């Protein structure tokens, strides 16, 4: 059930689970759990981009953070270039983090306001012993040039930069250690459209030049379609549909994917497209519905959906869907 070719995969995640315990009372007894991520599996081939999409609370950021073990998984396996990340002891994990980097959503909150750009970038180099002291400044300037920051701004503080430029600093910091994988958590959500396009182009250029692999986390489907090779759609901690970006966007099968795509406003006033408006809100991950988590909001639900959850079923090449109605083995609506 790994749609992208597993043999060249840089990263493979199997049955990843994160339950955050809820503690109550004087003795902080565990009274329940927030099932943030509930059995997620996917793999990313080297040099490609997989996007996790979904609404707030779908577990996409938690998944991203678990891959770098910024959050410890409850269970599940993470294999990065043949290394079992989940079982790695701390010192080796630190060395491995050189190869896996994170870009944060908020370019305002993720930079230390008291450190100049030079200090931010040089710290990353020093932490992993990547450039001897004498060559550090040259390397920092090279990095700044790579992401399109003027070299004369090396000694400025983050507050002197605009949002787009701060995001460039965040990207330069991630690139400083020459990583193979970058987990980018909503890197353009806080930016205006004209600046968003600059950053998306930069990320694509860097991927081409440096052969980077991206795990891109996003909620703006137009942006996700633009940047991804593969897409996994998440709902309440589970993947409901996954496949090549083209297939998922052109021929969505899961009712949630269809609703999500139809909800995106299209910048064309002649529009006239059919909108599926879902009723209700996303349920709480503390007490998710029985069976398929989407069934209370699903327009196509049947009896089976309320009792048992369907796992991902292959419905075409590089395309799998978790749905009783549209992707049950042998169902007519599965596309070949």
């Amino acid at each position: 059930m790994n749609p992208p070719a597993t043999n060249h995969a840089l990263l493979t995640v199997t049955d990843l689970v994160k339950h955050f315990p809820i503690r109550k009372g004087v003795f902080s007894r565990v009274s329940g759990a927030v099932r943030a991520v509930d059995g997620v599996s996917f793999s990313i081939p080297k040099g490609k981009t997989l996007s996790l999409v979904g609404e707030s609370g779908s577990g996409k950021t938690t998944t991203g953070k678990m891959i770098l073990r910024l959050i410890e998984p409850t269970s599940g396996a993470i294999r990065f270039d043949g290394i079992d990340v989940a079982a790695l002891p701390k010192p080796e994990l630190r060395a491995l983090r050189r190869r896996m980097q994170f870009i944060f959503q908020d370019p305002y909150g993720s930079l230390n306001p008291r450190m100049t750009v030079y200090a931010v970038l040089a710290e990353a180099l020093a932490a992993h012993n990547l450039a001897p002291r004498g060559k550090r400044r040259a390397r920092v300037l090279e990095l700044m040039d790579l992401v399109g920051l003027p070299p004369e701004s090396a000694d400025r503080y983050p507050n002197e930069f605009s949002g787009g430029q701060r995001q460039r600093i965040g990207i330069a910091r991630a690139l400083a250690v020459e990583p193979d994988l970058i987990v980018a958590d909503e890197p353009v959500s806080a930016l205006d459209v004209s600046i968003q396009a600059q950053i998306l182009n930069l990320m694509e250029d860097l991927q081409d030049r440096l052969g980077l692999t991206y795990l891109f986390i996003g909620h703006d489907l137009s942006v996700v379609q633009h940047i991804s090779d593969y897409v996994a759609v998440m709902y309440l901690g589970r993947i409901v549909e996954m496949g090549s970006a083209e297939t998922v966007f052109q021929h969505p099968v899961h009712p949630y994917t269809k609703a999500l795509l139809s909800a995106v406003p299209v910048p064309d006033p002649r529009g006239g497209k059919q909108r599926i408006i879902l009723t209700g809100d996303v349920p709480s991950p503390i007490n998710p519905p029985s069976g398929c988590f989407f069934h209370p909001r699903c327009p196509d639900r049947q009896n089976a959906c309320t009792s048992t959850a369907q796992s991902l079923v292959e419905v075409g090449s590089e395309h799998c869907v978790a749905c009783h109605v549209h992707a049950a083995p042998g169902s007519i609506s599965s596309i070949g």
Partner: protein
Amino acid sequence: MTQPILSVRNLRVRFKSDKGEAWVVDDVSLDVSAGKTLALVGESGCGKSMTALSILRLIPSPPGKIASGEILLGGRDLLALPETDMQAIRGAEISMIFQEPMTSLHPVFRAGNQIAAAIMLHSELSFAEARRETVQLLAQVGIPSPEERADDYPHQMSGGMRQRAMIAMALSCKPSVLIADEPTTALDVTIQAQILDLLKKLQEQLGMAIILITHDLGIVAENADEVAIMYAGKIVERAPVQDLYSSPRHPYTVGLFNSLPKLNAQRARLVPIPGQVPAATEFPAGCRFHPRCAHAMSCCTKEVPKTLDAGAGHSVACWLYDTSTMSVQGRPVGIPAAEAAKR
């Protein structure tokens, strides 16, 4: 065009800070008619929210000041009214919903009571009557079991639910103009679709004019009748929605469209606008867009372009469309065809 219910004429708003003076809204004119939606579009810091707050006279003063202009509601100039008259207009004739539904409801009062209070302020109703009206409103905005929900505190509601409660409050006195400032930016797309659908239905029922402030050109295409594009405190282009999307004139508008990744389109490289929006204290002279504009000429750096009529309710403030300058330059009027064809 029908008689506009609200007209803004040559509005100028000035802010003073230790970095100097900033004209955050500069010579802005707008009209919106009953039952119609005007979208005010622009990136952060372009002055769209400031324009909205000025209409309600809610600019924090000092440091802000409405320096000149007129805001006409049914022929009355709101800028000339005493503050007490203005209080009677806010919430009753012109209402506003805000971007952040969590911070715009008071956290320690029950949602229903906040709405009832707004009704009582603008009517003679008793609390019991206002309360009944509130439950009806909550039902109208699609909140399930409204009697019970009226007793909820804001933190007990989801984001979409809170925005519905805000809309109920804003509509409680049947305003003739509703200002919606990024009403769905904080919401997920499926919830955003619900809220925009609701606003459209309510507009049909109540016949109000809506000023929709947004940065999302998708939302504009699906919800607006007319669009005004703002850049650095000025309106650079105004047009009926169909016309703006089929033939954008201003280089900034064209740039915005080129920056946009499109769903279900062939994957092509985006064409961003170079540079960034200047700070309000550092707006350049002449056309404020000229440092980022690929077509900037010498006149753009010195003189502010006039707003030119491009026909059929379409107007644009750009030297490229000024026949007098272009003939002097010996160039054809408008953006060169190759550039415009990119989108």
